């Protein structure tokens, strides 16, 4: 009998499936985060400082121009800061993929009978949970910038934050998976992710951007996250888009963005390698 055609014997332990391993990887991600107090403090305080310092500074500088319509800059900058919190939490959380690989933890997961989809799902949902939580904590300051949420708008804001978190965490996973050093990861963040945020309408409105920058902003999926949040927070403020693009369309764009990024992360993690895995 050739071993190639052997079927699984009945005595083999049942497969762990997808959900149980994904749950346990999610759980670890969350527990690890909250056991490192410095990370918790940093992730909440630094965007807050950033928002107040940068927002106040820019606010006075740009007051003379039209800026973002009638809006105060601190108000305008608020959704963008929320997206930045989510971006940083999501991306930095996935630095754990590199740490796990360098330590050996990842190896022990890779040799377990766990589908790769479960590994990606568990890690990405872990990061998503953290990023979404941080984002929602930041909403405490919403009344200060004149945002009054109904239950429905809060639900939609939470959904948007979740989708942006999920997409960005999956993106972080896809970037981190092939890497073996956190330095390289930082380089990618500076080169690629900061511009992604800068060109999302978080810092300056799309309507005021010049030609090619504007097209980059349209092509940037994060733009639709910022736009969705701004529409939900300031229903009276004018749309940044020069064409008619509804909130639903923005959210659908985010869903596609999230699915695409998850697919990318899954595809990368599913490759079996002939190179050293550690």
């Amino acid at each position, binding site marked *: 009998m050739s*071993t*190639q055609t052997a079927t699984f014997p009945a005595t083999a332990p049942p*497969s762990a499936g997808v959900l149980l391993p994904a749950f346990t990887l999610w759980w670890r991600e969350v527990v690890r985060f909250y056991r490192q107090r410095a990370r918790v403090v940093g992730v909440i305080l630094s965007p807050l400082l950033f928002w107040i310092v940068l927002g106040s500074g820019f606010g006075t500088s740009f007051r003379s121009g039209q800026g973002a319509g009638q809006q105060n800059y601190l108000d305008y900058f608020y959704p963008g800061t929320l997206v930045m919190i989510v971006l940083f939490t999501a991306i930095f959380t996935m630095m754990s993929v590199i740490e796990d690989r360098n330590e*050996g*933890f990842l190896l*022990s997961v890779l*040799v377990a009978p766990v589908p790769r989809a479960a590994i990606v799902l568990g890690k990405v949902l872990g990061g998503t949970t953290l990023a979404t939580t941080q984002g929602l904590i930041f909403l405490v300051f919403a009344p200060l910038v004149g945002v009054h949420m109904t239950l429905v708008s809060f639900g939609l804001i939470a959904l948007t934050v979740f989708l942006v978190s999920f997409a960005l965490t999956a993106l972080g996973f896809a970037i981190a998976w092939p890497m073996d050093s956190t330095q390289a990861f930082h380089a990618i963040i500076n080169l690629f992710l900061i511009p992604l945020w800068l060109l999302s309408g978080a810092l300056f409105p799309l309507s005021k951007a010049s030609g090619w920058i504007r097209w980059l902003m349209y092509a940037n999926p994060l733009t639709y996250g910022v736009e969705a949040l701004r529409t939900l927070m300031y229903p009276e403020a004018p749309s940044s888009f020069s064409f008619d693009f509804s909130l639903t369309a923005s959210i659908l764009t985010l869903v596609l963005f999230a699915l695409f990024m998850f697919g990318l992360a899954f595809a990368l993690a599913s490759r079996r390698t002939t190179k050293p895995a*550690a």
Partner: protein
Amino acid sequence: MTSNSTSIDLAHPAQHSEQAGQPIISVRDLVHRYQDRTALNGVSFDVRPAELFGLLGPNGSGKTTLFRILSTLMVPTSGSATIAGFDAVHQPGAVRRHIGVVFQAQSVDLKLTAYENLWHQGHLYGLRGAELKARINEILTRVGLLDRSADRVETFSGGMQRRIELAKGLLHHPEVLLLDEPTTGLDPGARRDLWQYLQILRDQEQVSVIVTTHLMEEAERCDRLAILNEGSLVALGTPEALTREIGGDIILLEAHDPQTLADRIRSKFQVDATVMDNRVRIEIENGHRFVPDVVEAFPGEIQSLSVSKPTLEDVFIHRTGHRFWNEDAEPAPDTRKKKTKKT
């Protein structure tokens, strides 16, 4: 060089699985090439059930590559590896259910407690609930850490962390346990404990244990050994059989000019004298009788002399013509190829 030993089993795999007492692991003509070098160059061997099997070799010998292929982390360039009846290349999922793996690198999460680490590990293998809880307590008792169950692993000593690694690898009752340099960084006491535990596993739970090592004294504790050098199997057998094969004794001479002395001994006595590590090395039957002759023949030239029974290192020298590595050298990281000194 006598690398093609008769002890290397080249039986056809198709006949194997039909026989009683079939091997738990079958490796056949395994070849692995990285871009610029060949890490494994046609390696074949079997591991029997409930055997403590050692993979001995210096860094760069291919043992880490072999370990990664057996643990389904890497796909070989060609050849096959069958574990518990499943093909490591084509049926990685089935193989993973039957193996427990302990890596050289630390895989426990320091921020989690001992219990949490095992709870997490159990979920990866589909264990849950009361069954998992009972199993965790059982395995923690086995490794003597039940009382530290609720403590974070970062508070543990190196030896205790290793025991948690081992507990992780054994949690799902694997038939095969693969360990990569498991005693790295452990003090002698912890090393001894670990090896005792591996022997208990083999005897009481019939687990087949495959362990890579670069330490001769660890290799001597294995039931059987495969010695690797530069990607090829240079010896396979029990440590006793391998050392017996050399026969005779090993004489080492220290001298001012070992090269000249070796030449002169060769021409005078017609024995095989080589220079290794600034010492003259002679493999000879009845070494004690040869000693007076050689001392008298070269008065004043020999500074010191030792006669010993062959060790596994001598087996390695005998088969490859060069030293395993310098005695005091710290092992280099496995990714870098260490060039051993050739004579």
